[in-house]
């Protein structure tokens, strides 16, 4: 009997635990009717917290200093902030890794921009604003590689190209699905670029503006083999990334639409992004 | 007079600044047994290790059958072909059977064919009443049996001289006798031996000469009757008294 008595505290503990794990009531999310710093439900009241990658590359951000507003995405970010009514002092920058932000779960930022392509799968776990840019994927390589001079997509396969991309990017999808090749998969673009510089991969697939930058600046004797035709067809463009069902998503989308409509966005594109005329199209 | 099997002349051994053996001089004629007695730390084990060239002496000479084995250009492995040594414990190789233990040296060192070595080994084991243990692992044997096998193993090399370093000190008193009996058998077959021991029984029954070692010096020597019953030096007397009180005499 004494031993049975010892079991009772366990029972009590278990009952207490199950009582504690009952969920809180979820408050209904309501859409903000006005879009201003006072009414937007940002992570930090009165401040717009914007996230980007670590490091943030040219031409998206210059010198890895988004606070300067220099660089395509830095400029877009400040334009959107201004549209929402935040002056530059009310903007705070944080850094996240690429795939950490796409993963489901609460975020430490209001929106994140680092060349996130809008996809249906991603939309199931995060919110996107309307697109602010669309571009093809392109292949960066180096002079003397086995894919230099290739003019068709089939030519890539024939040359036995070893192509690389960062995990969880649409670039990886392009290699596997559109090109049907086996990819070398890296944790991030930085690692992939290292491998390319070491000639451990023949080519790296990234979006076109990044490809221009890498081939001109990062990769010694870098070249762009070409843009991958049709890689933007399924691509809904780059969007600002927000946590799922975020109440401020509609306001942010409105802001992006506004700067597109009033020409601000095009001006930013013209200022920071080279025309795509320089890169041949691989079919 | 025939050359003695072993001859030590003024052997000295130090470990760092500590003098462990001093002025050791003695002779071991063939077919005789010399027993060293003395307290722990008196240098008995070191003496035997020096004879077997496991430790290097710091002065003096060691002659085996008249040849200087302590000289600098001697190959210890060659010398050890003529010597056999058994230690206090951890003699047998636990990962091999008794038989494998005994044939290891003959097959690997002397290059004797395995069948021949096995035959000889079984003969030896049979002679000392341990043939039925041939395929057992050492841990299945009693301490006394293990030491006897260790002795037999060293005999497989047909050594000129057998060195026994406190071979019963780790044994249960009940098991000491079987080892003593084996050593007695060896003596009666004419094996030349040097023993270091606490067991006065060995001294009494086997020794042709007993030497009392005290702090690294041979203080007294003589027949076992002389030393054990009529010691002259006070140190010897004191030692024997202590041994007697401990019930080992």
């Amino acid at each position, binding site marked *: 009997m004494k031993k049975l008595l010892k079991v009772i505290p366990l029972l009590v503990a278990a009952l207490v635990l199950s009582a504690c794990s*009952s969920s809180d009531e979820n408050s209904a999310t309501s859409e903000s009717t006005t879009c201003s710093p006072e009414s937007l439900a940002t992570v930090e009241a009165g401040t717009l917290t914007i996230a980007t990658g670590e490091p943030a590359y040219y031409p998206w951000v210059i010198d890895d200093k988004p606070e300067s507003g220099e660089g395509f995405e830095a400029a877009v970010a400040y334009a959107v902030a201004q549209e929402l009514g935040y002056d530059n002092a009310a903007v705070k920058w944080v850094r996240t890794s690429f795939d950490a932000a796409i993963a489901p779960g609460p975020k430490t930022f209001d929106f994140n921009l680092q060349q996130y392509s809008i996809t249906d799968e991603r939309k199931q776990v995060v919110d996107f604003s309307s697109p602010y840019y669309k571009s093809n994927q392109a292949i960066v390589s180096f002079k003397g590689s086995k894919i230099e001079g290739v003019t068709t997509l089939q030519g890539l396969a024939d040359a036995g190209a070893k192509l690389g991309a960062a995990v969880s990017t649409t670039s990886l999808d392009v290699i596997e699905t559109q090109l049907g090749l086996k990819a070398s998969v890296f944790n991030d673009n930085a690692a992939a670029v290292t491998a390319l510089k*070491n000639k451990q991969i023949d080519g790296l697939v990234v979006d076109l503006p990044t490809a221009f930058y890498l081939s001109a600046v990062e990769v010694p004797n870098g070249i762009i083999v070409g843009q991958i035709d049709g890689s933007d067809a399924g691509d809904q463009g780059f969007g600002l990334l927000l946590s799922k069902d975020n109440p401020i998503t509609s306001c942010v989308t409105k802001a992006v639409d506004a700067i597109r409509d009033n020409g601000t966005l095009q001006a930013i594109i013209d200022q920071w992004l080279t025309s795509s005329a320089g890169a041949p199209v691989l079919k | 007079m025939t050359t003695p099997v072993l001859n030590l002349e003024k052997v000295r051994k130090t470990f760092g600044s500590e003098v462990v053996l001093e002025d050791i001089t003695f002779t071991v004629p063939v077919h005789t047994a010399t027993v060293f007695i003395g307290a722990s730390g008196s240098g008995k084990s070191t003496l035997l290790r020096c004879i077997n060239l496991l430790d290097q002496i710091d002065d003096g000479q060691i002659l085996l059958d008249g040849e200087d084995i302590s000289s600098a250009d001697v190959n210890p492995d060659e010398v050890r072909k003529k010597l056999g040594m058994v230690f206090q414990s951890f003699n047998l190789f636990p990962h091999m059977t008794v038989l494998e233990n005994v044939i290891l040296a003959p097959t690997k060192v002397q290059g004797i064919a395995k069948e021949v070595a096995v035959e000889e080994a079984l003969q030896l084991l049979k002679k000392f009443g341990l043939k039925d243990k041939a395929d057992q692992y050492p841990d299945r044997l009693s301490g006394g049996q293990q030491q006897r096998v260790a002795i037999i193993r060293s005999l497989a090399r047909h050594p000129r001289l057998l060195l026994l370093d406190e071979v019963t000190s780790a044994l249960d008193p009940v098991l000491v006798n079987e080892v003593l009996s084996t050593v007695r058998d060896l003596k009666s077959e004419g094996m030349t031996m040097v023993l270091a021991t606490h067991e006065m029984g060995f001294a009494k029954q086997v020794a042709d000469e007993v030497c009392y070692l005290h702090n690294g010096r041979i203080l007294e020597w003589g027949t076992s009757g002389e030393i054990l019953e009529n010691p002259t030096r006070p140190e010897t007397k004191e030692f024997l008294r202590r041994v007697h009180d401990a019930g080992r005499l």
Partner: protein
Amino acid sequence: MSNKSGRGSYEGATPYDFGGPWSPSEIELARRQARKKRNQRSALVAALSSFLVLGTFVIVVVTSPGWETLRNTFFKWAYGFEILPKIILGFGTNAMLTVIAGTSVAIIGLAIALLRTSRSPALTPFRFLATVYVDVFRGIPMLLVILLVGFGIPALQIKGLTNNVLILGTLAVIITYSAYVAEVIRSGILTVHPSQRAAARSLGLSHFQTLRHVVLPQALKRVTPPLLNDLVALIKDTGLVSILGVTDAVRAAQIQTAKTFNYTPYVMAAIIFLLVTIPLTRWTDRMLRNSLEKQNAQGQA
């Protein structure tokens, strides 16, 4: 009842009457009854307590609000089995790496251990280098070594030196693990009683023969458990080369997860690793037990 104080002796005749007919006394029978009852009670309590605790735990987990989400996110079996072939393919890389690295590490580790325990004056500079090597590679995280060897060396663009990530990654793993294994084997060698070596030398065995026939067999047997531990660790650590762009089981799972944001692929990968490592650890336990039993029969003479 005999009076046992004072002087006395056994009255019976020899040979002694052991093993004759005997049946338990009343006292013994009563004792047995009491013990049986107590054991039954203990078993009942054990069963009841286990049932209650585990049952409660399961109930709490399954009825908690996050359970459905948890189950879908981590344990979506249908999806898991759909992508399983890709993960198994990736695991092929892990397996191959383990075999190649494992064999090399065993050889190199042994060589370094022997080098460190040798006393030959001719080998002094090598002994010193071996010590430096062991200290360095046990002190640097293997991830760093992989990055240094896999990315750093090719950056030097030395002619004739491969820049294949798989080869370099394997090399990095081998270099690191050999340091650990060398130390394990060395410690095994050092624990063999010096009398064993003395006995072997006294029998006339050379230094090399002593090592081969007496010291190493014992040393290796002794360190088999930690060595097999290292093998299991190796199987898991092979996944780190995925940083260099090699697709192994973990990376394959990561790629799938990144597409669907469902973590079941990770669970599948974990299961595959367990399917290999658990039998291995149980087998090594059994092997060790057997070899110890054979060697250490407790004084049966």
